[in-house]
């Protein structure tokens, strides 16, 4: 297992479908490139993914937990920088070919427009609900957490749409150092609130259920981060960041009334 973890920088596989530059320009000129209601530009996102693969090189484990099709909500820990959503998006896209829709970012144009073109969604429950109904993989980062071994608080209100729609919530532990290029992405087993349902009338949100799912996701994140640092992975990736022992307080009952 240690050997597998030590291999931090595998050769990234070639993208499954890589339209050539001429094809990309042709689509641009003819206006036949794909957009979605939130402004996602598929060609531009694939192109950005290639650039991201040069900037961040991540090992991925547990990729089988990401559904090959259909909606899912990924919840990733985040520290003080901006890299985690990009690392997860580029790693999952590389492994599965699916485009990740990170939640958040600057909402003001032109930067907001650029981020939306690359797949970003507004941090609003209604937009997340609509994106999930459209079958997207949505990535919700936790609140910023300066301590590397803690997952950070979960934004409960952004998890609620996934719980209401009974789509899988997939915890993702991201370990790395902001200026660094070596990262580790561990994907945990999905947490599902109940059997999938189609009809919106059946998708009422139960606050207790949201709290229970949030605690479960947070515990899973906490366990994965603890495991990563116990194995020394963090020290290899975060070579100049001082380490500390782990203490679990991921979801301090934010809106749930319960601890993990």
């Amino acid at each position: 297992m240690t050997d597998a973890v030590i291999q931090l920088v595998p050769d990234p596989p070639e993208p499954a479908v890589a339209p050539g530059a001429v094809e990309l320009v042709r689509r641009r000129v003819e206006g036949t490139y794909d957009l979605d209601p939130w402004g996602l530009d598929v060609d531009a996102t694939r192109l950005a993914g290639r650039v991201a693969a040069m900037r961040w090189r991540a090992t991925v484990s547990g990729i089988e937990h990401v559904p090959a099709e259909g909606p899912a909500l990924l919840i990733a820990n985040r520290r003080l920088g901006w890299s985690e959503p990009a690392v997860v998006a580029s790693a999952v896209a590389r492994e599965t070919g699916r485009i990740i829709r990170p939640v958040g970012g600057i909402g003001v144009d032109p930067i907001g427009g650029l981020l939306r073109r690359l797949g970003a969604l507004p941090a609003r429950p209604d937009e997340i609900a609509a994106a999930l109904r459209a079958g997207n993989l949505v990535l919700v980062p936790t609140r910023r957490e300066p301590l590397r071994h803690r997952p950070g608080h979960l934004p409960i209100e952004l998890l609620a749409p996934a719980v209401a729609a009974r789509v899988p919530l997939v915890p993702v532990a991201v370990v790395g150092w902001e200026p660094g290029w070596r990262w580790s992405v561990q994907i945990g087993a999905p947490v599902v609130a109940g059997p999938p349902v189609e009809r919106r009338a059946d998708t009422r949100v139960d606050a207790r259920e949201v709290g229970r799912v949030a605690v479960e996701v947070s515990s899973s994140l906490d366990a994965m981060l603890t495991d990563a640092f116990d194995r020394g992975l963090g020290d290899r990736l975060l070579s100049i960041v001082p380490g500390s022992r782990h203490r679990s307080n991921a979801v301090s009952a934010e809106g749930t009334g319960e601890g993990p």
Partner: protein
Amino acid sequence: MVWQTRAQRAAKVTLRAAESASNGLMRVLITGMGGQLGTLVARRLERLDGVDAIVGIDLDPPRRRLRRAEFHWTRPGDSDTVVEIVRSFDPTVVVHLGQFEPHARLVPDRADRASRHATESLLTALAQARSLRSIVVRSGIEVYGRGRGASICPDESAPATPTSQFGRRLLATERAVASFARSAGVPVTHLRFAPIAGFHAPSPLARLLKLQAVPVPAITEPTFALVHAGDAADVIVAAVHAERDEAVNVVAPGVVSAYQAARIGGRVPVPVLGPGWAVARRIVEVAGAPLPDHVHELLVRGRSADGSHCASVLGLAPTTSTRDIVSEIQQQAGVEFFEVIDGYAA
């Protein structure tokens, strides 16, 4: 068309109503039957066995030949005539399509007045409808508005905060009809359509996209969805049968940006920024495609909605994609001049 006196007309309609009441079939009243959408709905209803009689009113005659449906010309606000028609016909289902999109058939102020008067006269008349079972209202996703902080892809539960004249009129109509329906105890289905377009559908957006040069936002690329007039008519017919008491978004699959819409038809997109839109609006108006505020908003802020609820409650959803609708609009033939030989077109 045979001209009838008011009494003859009332007698005929009353006789038809009495017959259908005895056999339990539907009697459908369509306001706005003269428009493209109203005509398509009437033609579809004519083919259904469960529909016994169809009566339509509008300020323009239907755009195609109707076999069974009966049309009555009325001016917007002519409540007396509408009351008489409703009282004698006694509809079981009302399809209220009398909402006039600015610069589609009427200039914005007249369109707004006509929509308001059509709704007021209809609701006044419906007080006389003893057999009314349900109402279907044509609305639009313009009711959600595109103000700062508004949802990009709203579902039916999103707050309605319209930011255009057309959106405000549609919302006012929804509220007026809902208020009446509550008091009458009948369900009302608000069908919130994306901008309706198609080969024959009069639409300010379609006229704009047919210009040789189309103004598009210079920096951002907001997207919009459309719905084909034929698909819209199918959804209305489904809503007539479903008798649901809720709002339903009706949106075609896929979205396009203004740039894409221009390029799909080989038009030249002209980037416009900020105050340049005031100039662009004047120029396109002179070119024959006036730009009402809701279309301007669509171009610069986008317009889409989550239409996934439609299939689950009505059993069908639009199938023609937004891209195909734009292609259809763009491929409409322009004026073709024939060579004249001996006084006849060659």
